[in-house]
């Protein structure tokens, strides 16, 4: 048997959630991308956003990450309303507390993999040598030391995506947002990326918000939230 867990403003205001959204609406022209979506994410939890194409999954992820401002509704991170932050403060938050993994084209092709991983540290003001040291340690921890000196064009798609995961984790974020992170990979490489991302995140108590339409990818999550027609639905099975 299952029960609906309708995400309410009361639930979002609880201190239980690291990140929460309530009653989000977002319109692009005549299209309602979000029409009352909401969810809560606890520290260290891996949550999969699933649903058909065009259902609003990526828009919801972008709102949660402070990349897109919802027309109405509230996104709270550590209790603070993201709408109350200046653009600068939101950018800083995205640099320090959030990490990102996308499907395509996220590594800078002119930089080596090491420099790519060091990039968010450098943008955060860390000095070159210290940033490179931390980036090297992160690559080594994720068994990617051998690609440090190579450029993205010289490594496989799977390796490139694992480097992207290393870059997302190097700043020690509290939340990693992953939008179809295995969408361009074959089964084996996709599995390696998911295993690496979720294992590393759980070890660090980092939450992961994952957009995927693949069930085998969602199976790495702790729970799934269904996004359909811009609304969210969560079923809590008696587990």
């Amino acid at each position: 048997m299952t029960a609906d867990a309708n995400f309410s403003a009361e639930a979002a205001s609880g201190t239980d959630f690291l990140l929460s959204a309530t009653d989000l609406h977002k319109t692009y022209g005549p299209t309602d991308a979000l029409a009352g979506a909401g969810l809560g994410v606890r520290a260290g939890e891996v949550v999969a956003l699933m649903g058909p194409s065009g259902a609003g999954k990526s828009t919801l992820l972008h709102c949660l990450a402070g990349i897109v401002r919802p027309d109405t509704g509230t996104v709270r991170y550590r209790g603070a309303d993201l709408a109350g932050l200046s653009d600068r403060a939101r950018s800083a938050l995205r640099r320090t507390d959030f990490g990102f993994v996308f499907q395509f084209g996220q590594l800078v092709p002119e930089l080596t993999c090491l420099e790519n991983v060091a990039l968010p540290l450098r943008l955060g003001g860390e000095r070159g040598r210290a940033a490179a040291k931390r980036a090297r340690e992160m690559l080594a921890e994720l068994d990617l030391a051998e690609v440090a000196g190579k450029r993205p064009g010289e490594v496989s798609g799977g390796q490139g995506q694992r480097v992207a995961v290393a870059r997302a984790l190097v700043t020690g974020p509290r939340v990693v947002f992953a939008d179809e992170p295995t969408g361009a990979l074959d089964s084996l490489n996709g599995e390696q990326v998911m295993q690496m991302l979720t294992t590393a995140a759980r070890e660090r108590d980092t939450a992961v918000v994952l957009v995927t339409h693949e069930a085998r990818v969602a199976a790495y999550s702790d729970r799934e939230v269904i996004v359909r027609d811009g609304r969210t639905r969560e079923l809590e099975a008696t587990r």
Partner: protein
Amino acid sequence: MLCIVPSMSIGHTLLGLLETGPRHGYDLKRAYDDRFAHDRRIHYGQIYSTLARLLKQGLVEADGVEVDGGPERKRYAITDAGVADVAEWLSTPEKPEAYLQNTLYTKVVLALLSGRAATDVLDVQRSAHLDAMRELTRRKTGGDLVDQLVCDHALFHLEADLRWLELTAARLGQLAKEIG
């Protein structure tokens, strides 16, 4: 082609058909064969033995006798307990295992016929499938290569079921029109 309703679900399927209105056995057989039997029709004996069981369980009741020039035909109606039984069956996910499409298809059609939310049937099943896939993924992550290969086989089959389920969810509007 096999009859698409597993024998253990026939009782629920007949109940679901009776939810749209009282019918006699012949009517039920025709409705069943039209929607669910494909090339393998259900036997009258199976219809009447199932109805006898449902009657005994209080899930259906006699609703008069039709005398229409021919032999007398007993009509059956679903009881409140029967409606509750169908609702319970539709809202309970099947044990996640491969090749569930037949039972799920039957549930979806009956949900649409009875005006229930067919998306609920699919959502509940998706949730149960994903739970089973999570368990297999955990087992695989901590296992050796043999465990991984065994779990992968089960995972791919469950995934195939889920893909069918997503496609069905996307076609519910069309299906509702066709069976309406």
